[in-house]
């Protein structure tokens, strides 16, 4: 099997980037325009945006508010897609395995546990809506999710890195073990809350993920996380390419593998934690998008990481547009949509890479 054989990009990097950068605002605009009532259509969406930045009169009735609500949802959606795709590309590069995803490091399970603990602990013996009244849930669930994700990654890296060496197999196995533990605790919480329908419903909604009713806080969290994670990309892209040939070779070529691993784990964790904390669990973006982008741009990490942000953003925006265009107000949670798409894609992936997987 030739690693070079599929490294030739279908499109030049520049053209891929331009296409994605053109697609992104177009999809964003469609996301703002899609809906019913007076705020539907590209015209009102553009007018609402113009009014938002002081270049026109606000739309009449509730249309202006609706455009603003859609704007926060669109920005959050794009940020979540970008974060998950970037995180996936980084993790797959680190593990030298295209089947790895951010969840391997315990990020998703950690964020889920953090958010779930916040929901249950804050709910206490009262009803959840009283917390919403105080505005606590809107703030605390994402924050606890974020902290939970980082704690999970910290635990994984701490255990895997004992003795001063952060080995990839140890990271993978520790991640699996921590994921299993966290899943057990999550199940325990779900089981204890089973008879309390409001708490159960809130936990379940958190598990499915949601992009509805997003506020500026959600967009700010996810875009800050993405911005910080992107900063690491230039410092690891070339090194990740060299790591694909083996750690010894990379070290011989002057790569500080320990520094690269730490940077990649931190950046991938930050990106994924930001995404999961504002939107709940949305599986498979981190797995699917890097593969689609490799088909487009080849295996080199510099273009891959560069394209993953607009690529992931465009992918999730497109999936959400499709979801809302087909099902309207009864649209499915994004976690469900992505699982329905990502699951079959994973099967295809295994099929395409059967020989490689069988050689493990």
């Amino acid at each position: 099997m030739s690693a070079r054989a599929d490294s030739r990009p279908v499109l030049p990097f520049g053209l891929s980037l331009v296409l994605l950068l053109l697609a992104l605002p177009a999809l964003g605009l469609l996301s703002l325009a899609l809906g019913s009532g007076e705020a539907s259509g590209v015209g009102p969406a553009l007018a609402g945006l113009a009014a938002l930045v002081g270049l026109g009169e606000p739309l009449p009735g509730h249309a202006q508010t609706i455009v603003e609500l859609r704007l926060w949802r669109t920005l959050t959606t794009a940020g979540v897609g970008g974060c998950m795709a970037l995180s996936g590309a980084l993790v797959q590069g680190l593990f030298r395995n295209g089947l790895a995803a951010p969840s391997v490091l315990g990020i998703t399970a950690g964020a889920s546990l953090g958010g779930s603990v916040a929901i249950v602990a804050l709910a206490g013996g009262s009803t959840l809506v009283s917390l919403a009244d105080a505005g606590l849930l809107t703030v605390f669930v994402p924050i606890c999710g974020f902290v939970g994700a980082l704690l999970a990654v910290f635990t994984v890296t701490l255990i895997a890195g004992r003795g001063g060496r952060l080995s990839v197999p140890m990271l993978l196995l520790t991640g699996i073990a921590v994921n299993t533990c966290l899943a057990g605790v999550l199940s325990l919480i779900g089981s204890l809350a089973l008879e309390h329908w409001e708490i159960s419903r809130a936990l379940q909604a958190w598990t499915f993920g949601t992009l509805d009713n997003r506020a500026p806080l959600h967009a700010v969290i996810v875009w800050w996380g993405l911005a910080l994670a992107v900063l690491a990309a230039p410092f690891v892209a070339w090194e990740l390419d060299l790591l694909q040939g083996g750690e010894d070779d990379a070290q011989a070529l002057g790569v500080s593998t320990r520094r690269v691993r730490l940077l990649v784990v931190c950046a991938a964790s930050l990106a994924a934690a930001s995404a999961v904390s504002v939107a709940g669990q949305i599986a498979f973006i981190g797995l699917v998008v890097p593969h689609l982008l490799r088909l487009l741009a080849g295996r080199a990490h510099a273009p891959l990481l560069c394209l993953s942000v607009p690529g992931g953003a465009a992918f999730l925006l497109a999936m959400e547009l499709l979801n809302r265009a087909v099902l309207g107000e009864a649209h499915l949670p994004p976690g469900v949509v992505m699982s329905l798409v990502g699951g079959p894609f994973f099967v295809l992936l295994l099929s395409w890479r059967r020989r490689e997987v069988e050689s493990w």
Partner: protein
Amino acid sequence: MTRSSATAAKTPGSRATLGLALGVVLVSAAVSILAAADATADAPAPAPLSRDLPDPGWPRVVALPDGGSLQLDAPPRAVVPAAAGCVDLLLPLVDPARLAALPDQALLYSALHDPRGAWAELPRFDRYEAEPLLALAPDLVLCHGWQAGATTDRLREAGVTVLVLDDPTSWAGAREQLLVLGDLLGEEARAREVVGAYDDRVAALRDVGQGRRALALSFGSSGGWLAGAGTTNDEQLRLVGLTNMAAAEGIRGHQQITLEGLLQRDPDVLVVTAETRGWLLAQGSLADLRAVRGGRVVSIPGWLYTAASQYLVDGAEALGAALWRADQGLPPVDRER
């Protein structure tokens, strides 16, 4: 993807996998669509309102609303209600001495939120599971259809009589269940007295809504939920003369709603719990809603908002009173209980 794996993808085996994957997507989509379609299916016709008195004495055979029947050898003396709604139905019919235990849920969602005296001393259980329930030696267990069927099976196998109730979504449904329970418990006279009193209260409800367009909804960390046709909230709106916009749109059951959906509907009246009211009024994006501007975001206590029993009538009364206060320009009386 490498060249060799690309070639492999074109083999019959890979095509079969591709077909399988596409099949999974199509089946998943079909299941989702069928599930969505099911939510809009027509609800069963309401139960008949009249009911003959059972034959006096024991053993007796009691006819059930679903056409079946239940035979009891003696009046039950160790009744276990397994859900909050079942507790609510029992409250006006029996004394606490006839209950073997209460579910923990009752303290959150039933009228028995502040048990006193003998009610407070009843044993409690937190889950509908056969083992702890059998330890209570019940002679009648009341549960809802959504509770674990396996537990119901184990209890019946152990010789316990179990009555599975539907969640009543209207006064007519709750009325029928009260009468059935009265017959089962040997409290038929008391049940008819309670039903008669509630009938009078329903008849006395005033048309304070005057056909105004209303929505009943709750908001929490699981998002917003709108009450459509076939819900207790729809019945409460109807009883006070409000028009449920969600039901008029054809929505059945509870459906998720976004803030955008709320703005687009812009109802005259919003019916919520006290907690949701505070949250809604704190949302700047909703400040221009007709109901917010007009001071007609009216709240009822959470346990009445979710009551699936005769207490939905109490909820309608609380709603009528809250709407009347709003119409008079009086400040709301927010109370959780």
